[in-house]
């Protein structure tokens, strides 16, 4: 499935109110790491620091455009559509779209099939401090859970305030405070497995694979396998049943941590997510036996 080079990828930044979308976007804008010719569509200008300096010199086509909340009774005055129309014929090469806090990634994604664009990835921010509580909220509990379920990549924010926070999910997860969090988000592609990468020279692309074992493996074997992973593997995360009980695996770069799972076994969703910057390397990981 090759896409025409002229189509612009849209990365959706979702997550409930307070999940840190605005902080994250501000960091992107301030970091200098935002590739040139990126348009940032924010849900409301509110807390986004849009000043001349952020619209960085040398890349005049960078744009931050504010969107009002979706229209109520009809779509005749639809800000997103108008923004996409305007950007279509511009030199913009990619779009970051901040979703409203109550948007479901699936529904927002539909909008990104607009002619001239394609949805690149749904990134959802999850607030380590309040997520668990919010999932029980009678008004937004289902919504918040659905946002996580529909994400291609999850970014955990505020984990410093709640170091024990752990999201029981097999989706690729990174921490907002990771050194390379911005790079990972910008490079993330939901269709990465099809060998598609976004047209930019600045951000690398990332690929992901999940591994699940039906039978327990030996702890020694697991350790060995992790050591043998190719260098392009950036992250490994998840839970594995071993002869020494359920083990939680956390690996960032070459730093691997294995911790015994102390909570009730039935709460553990078994499986490992492996994130690498080279698709071929992922394909060569053969853990099947």
């Amino acid at each position, binding site marked *: 499935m090759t896409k025409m080079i002229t189509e612009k990828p849209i990365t959706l930044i979702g997550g409930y109110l307070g999940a840190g979308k605005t902080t994250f976007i501000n960091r992107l804008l301030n970091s200098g790491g935002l590739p040139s010719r990126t348009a940032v569509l924010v849900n409301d200008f509110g807390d986004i620091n849009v000043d001349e300096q952020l619209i960085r010199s040398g890349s005049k086509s960078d744009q931050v455009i504010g969107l009002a*909340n979706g229209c109520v009774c009809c779509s005749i*005055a639809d800000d997103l559509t108008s923004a996409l129309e305007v950007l279509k014929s511009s030199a913009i090469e990619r779009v970051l779209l901040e979703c409203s806090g109550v948007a479901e990634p699936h529904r927002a994604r539909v*909008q990104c099939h607009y*002619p001239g664009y394609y949805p690149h990835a749904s990134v959802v921010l999850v607030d380590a401090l309040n997520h668990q509580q919010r999932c029980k909220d009678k008004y937004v509990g289902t919504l918040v859970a659905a946002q996580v379920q529909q994400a291609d990549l999850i970014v955990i924010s505020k984990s410093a305030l709640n170091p024990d926070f752990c999201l029981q999910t097999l989706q690729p997860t990174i921490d907002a405070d990771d050194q390379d969090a911005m790079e990972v988000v910008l490079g993330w592609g939901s269709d990465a497995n099809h060998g598609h990468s976004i047209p930019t020279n600045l951000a690398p692309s990332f690929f992901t694979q999940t591994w699940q074992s039906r039978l327990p493996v030996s702890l020694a074997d697991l350790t060995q396998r992790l050591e043998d992973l190719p260098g392009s593997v950036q992250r490994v995360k998840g839970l594995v049943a071993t002869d020494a009980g359920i083990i939680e695996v956390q690996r960032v770069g070459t730093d691997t941590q294995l911790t015994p799972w102390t909570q009730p076994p039935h709460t553990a969703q078994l499986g490992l997510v492996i994130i690498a910057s080279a698709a071929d390397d992922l394909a060569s990981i053969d853990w099947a036996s």
Partner: protein
Amino acid sequence: MLTLYKARSVITMNESMPRATAVLVRDGMIVEVGEPEHMEPWLRHQEYVVEDQFVEKVICPGFIDPHLHPSMAAVLLPMEFITAMRWKLPWGEVEPVTDAEGFDRRMGALSTKKSVDEPLFIWGYHQLWHGPMSRARIEDIAGDKPTVVWHRSFHELYMNAAAMDMVGVVAAEIKPGMQIDIERGWFFEGGLGYAINRLNPWILAPDKYAAGLQRLKQVVHHGGHTTIGDLATGMFNFSAEAEALSQHLEGDDVPFRTRLVAHGTVLTKGGVPPQQGPELAEALLQRNSHRLHFGRHIKLFSDGAFFSQLAQLQEPGYIDGHHGEWLTTPEILEQHIRSYWHAGYQIHVHVTGDLGLQLTLDILQKMQEEKPRFNHGFTLEHFGFSTPEQIRQIQALGAQVSANVYYLHELSDSYTQNGIGYERASQMARLGSCFRAGINTTVHSDFTMAPAEPLNSMWVAVNRINHVGDVMGATEAITPQQALQAITLNAAHVIGMADITGSIRAGKRADFTVLDEDPLTCDPLDLRNINIYATVFEGKVFPLA
């Protein structure tokens, strides 16, 4: 100069004198209601004329629709209607078309009526009645006259090749997965925005929009209204709308006044903090003219559209397990409500499902604890699904209800099958309970969501008959007396105009709706067929053919 209106009967909606036979008016204001012989003291020293064209008629207080959308209507009304339900429009009654052949026949007739290059816009198509639509089907009938068929819900449309050419749809741009089926000429959800963006030069063209507002003016008069509420002023654009409204809905030939209630989220668009909302709303008061009034009212939004099954429901939710949508993040809704509550505003919140309603009531409860207010007029708009327990809460918190009762007529049958099941579908628009609880309750059309015909709303509220003829939730029906009160005095309370209109008594404006039949004594099934003879706005007669 005084004018003495005589009638077969005057229904005053003033409990202290429910009936009379005459109304005496000076300079657009009622000076006395009652029997002509009691008016002698006024007439003794002043000149007067007797207006006797209503002696065989029944005078009611001028009807009020407290929630409709002139700007939306202006977009829709220039289009041709082919609908499964009847729509009584000033330029002709739209007879229901309930099958595919009928739809095609009417599309053909409309097509030949238009000149060759004038595009044809049709609104009201629904697959349930009219069968599957496609570009080929349109072309069979309308050939290469540019033709757009818009779905009843507004959320999808079909075009023939000529229409796609006209607006500049580029087939090569369209790829699979984007909710456009170019073969069928079908644009929906994500793809709809693409189509609308290209259609806007036609549907929002200033002359079209102006013509649409002129038609709206006729619709409002024809429905017998003397007052309406625009319940989301600014939905497209504040200054453009305000300008157009003052051009078309102000002036001696306009037989009604409009309460303008600003769209709260648009007002603070662009990151303005909610605390500044009241200040911005206050500035709108500068724009007021005789017929067009902003007041200290604001419109806010809770859950999604009722017609699209996006209302947020409490358990057990929808049969197919999908869930609704929030139009505003709950915490943000609370911030908005808080700032207007503390500024003393009357807040109108769009609520459609019982979960959306519960959220709104919980916030209202919080506000009452923070800063107790009496007579605050907090209004629940639309009021699709509710529970009996919520009725008590509404009553205890001092809120009022403005219901779109037409949901029950058009949707209760299909929501029984594909939606929420019979029990809850039959209890949409729980109006009987509201009246029994003493809640100030009115009904509205949300035009163009439902016909702007107060007598039709009254008919639905009294009979609770759905479109297949079943009576739904009979104990939630209200009496003709209550229903007439809903479309007059109670509506006036909801839009904050009960001091000047809504009933017929000394001191109020002379706003009347003059009927051929008595709506309180006729067969309730005939309510929607009562002929409206004329309206009177501030003492000026506006006849209806």
